[in-house]
């Protein structure tokens, strides 16, 4: 699909209060275009609650319902139930950060996924609590500096996209701010499917990750090129890698050096060589795990993802 074929209407308006270089606005703009604006957004506490702008204004042109931090998926379930009874086919979409997905929002997310609620849950993952000023979350990677891990986080991140695969829901996908057409197409695919759908977008945050604000998109690409972030899509249990991750998995492309990605970010500037090795081991394991989901395309035992 060409960019020129994307929906022209804008649903995220200029004049919003996001930071310069914010990945979330770019991602939301793309998502709402892919949904043709026929959506109600449910937004728990996150950066978007702020950058949508203060009452009585709003930078978002579709109906938005703000809800408490822990309860996005549950609120969306209620809205959808109401719409179904009224015979309205409006898509109900949760737009949450990683705090509202990985941590405080996980119970409601898991419950809604298990119930098979007919909603799309989108996590824009910037790997920390950025709205409150960069604290660690369950999505923060090993070694990363935050204001609650001053010497670097000592634990690896968990992975909610894999957790959603385990829920057996009809659609799970990952995306990156570096590849907006891929994101657009995944939202389009999700729209064609009924039931609980989960999409997670890597959203590199310049002030939180400590990199220049004109490098957001590049950082999103580098994350995928270095194998640190994996693009995939699982439709009714059939998982396939997409984009550059697919080329990497099929051996048609070598991963970029992990250091190139890590050292471009101030949050990793203190890493020692053994920390980088620890991250490398973790990333490789993730690839092998994901490869096991893919039938026929990749043989995990012989896959050589790294140079």
């Amino acid at each position, binding site marked *: 699909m060409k960019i020129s074929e994307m929906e022209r209407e804008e649903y995220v308006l200029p004049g919003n209060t996001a930071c310069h270089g914010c990945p979330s606005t770019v991602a939301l703009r793309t998502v709402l275009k892919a949904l043709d604006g026929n959506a109600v957004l449910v937004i728990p506490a996150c950066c978007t609650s702020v950058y949508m702008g203060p009452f009585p204004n709003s930078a978002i042109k579709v109906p938005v319902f703000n809800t*408490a931090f822990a*309860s996005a998926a*549950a609120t969306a379930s*209620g809205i959808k*139930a*109401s719409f179904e009874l009224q015979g309205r086919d409006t898509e109900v979409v949760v737009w949450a950060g990683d705090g509202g997905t990985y941590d405080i929002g996980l*119970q409601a997310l898991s419950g809604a996924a298990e119930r098979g609620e007919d909603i799309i849950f989108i996590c824009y993952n910037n790997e920390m609590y950025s709205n409150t000023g960069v604290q660690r979350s369950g999505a923060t990677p090993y070694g990363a500096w935050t204001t609650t891990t001053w010497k670097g986080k000592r634990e690896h991140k968990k992975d909610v996209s894999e957790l959603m695969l385990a829920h057996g829901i009809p659609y799970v996908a990952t995306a990156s701010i570096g590849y907006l057409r891929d994101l657009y197409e995944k939202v389009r695919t999700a729209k064609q499917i009924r039931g609980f759908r989960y999409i997670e977008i890597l959203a590199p945050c310049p002030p939180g990750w400590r990199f220049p604000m004109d490098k957001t998109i590049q950082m999103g690409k580098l994350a995928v090129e270095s194998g640190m972030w994996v693009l995939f899509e699982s439709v009714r249990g059939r998982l396939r890698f997409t984009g550059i991750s697919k080329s990497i998995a099929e051996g048609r492309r070598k991963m970029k050096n992990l250091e190139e990605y890590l050292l471009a970010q101030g949050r990793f500037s203190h890493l020692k060589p053994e920390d980088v090795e620890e991250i490398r081991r973790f990333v490789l394991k993730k690839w092998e795990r994901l490869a096991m989901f893919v039938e026929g395309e990749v043989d995990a035992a012989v896959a050589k993802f790294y140079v």
Partner: protein
Amino acid sequence: MYDVKYEVRILTGNETAAYAAMNSEVRVVAAYPITPATPVVETISRLVEDGKMRAKFIMVESEHSAMAACIGASAAGSRTFTATSSHGLAYMHEMLHWAANARTPIVMAVANRAIGPGWNIWADLGDSLSQRDTGWMQLYCSHNQEIYDTIAMAYRLAENKRILLPAMVCYDGFTLSHTSMPVELTEFVDFLPDYEPVWMLDTEKPFTHGNILPPEEFAELRHNIQKSHDRALRLMEKIEEEFYEIYRRRTPLILEEYKVEDAEKVIVTMGAIGSEAKVAADSLREKKVKVGVVRLKSFRPFPEKHVKKLLEDKKVFVFDRAISPGSGGQLYQELKAALSSTPVKRLSPRVVGIGGIDVTKRTFEKALFERKIWVKEVVS
């Protein structure tokens, strides 16, 4: 004259609440089980599965989510109901604030129960009273018919365009929730019109709900909620009359008074023990002690003027089935403030029935003549 269709059935308080939700044409129910409110959820689930109740029933994974889903459903334009108790209500706390500030007219049945530890599943009004500042209206029932009527009346109140606030319909756990009584299951078609939301989420008319609210606007929002509570008190009188016109049942929304006019001592209380207080009053009157009862139905909004008018020159005994440690019974605190012109010595606090201790007519008799605040045993 109204031609009201009804049937009388023997129902527990919980079943009554479920049937009231069904006949109030509730469209979305999101709930989570907790003793002693669980049978409300079970009954509704059965009514929906059997096709008797045209509603979506969402069995969520927590009470926090139950209230969140109710708020969402209400914001999307449907009449919404849930039921809970005790720890469940405490777990909802954040969303109770959200429901009030969001102006979603949800009605919730609360089977009052103590909060642990230690685990105590019995009646105690402390669970809902500790939610008194959330902005919800709170109505306390004393028998099953009242539960049935009050749920429909609560929707009339909550959904009024000038009120738009959620309401709790509270009843003592087990004492009412699990006790069977005859209940007239009247239809509410003449009383409760179809829900017409004042606002709802709609892609045709997009707006953003609940975004950042600057201080002045936030003060306006909270002030408006207070004003709605004031209006609710006035509307309650009208709804009581209208309900009586149609159903010939005197179901109070503000308060019930019993032999107060000539009384020398007045018992003020709430909930199921209000019925027992009337028995005690009759018994004491046989012994030539002139006792009256004021059973408060509406705790939020608090009917300050009404109690002042009734009690200003009486000797008042306030019976709380809850305690706010560090101060005293919540009802006592409120009355002390409402009757600030009354000499304090004419206002006596009593704390009874905590953690489900049975409150008998002799409990009242004993407490009226002894100077102790606490009654911690069953007086038989």
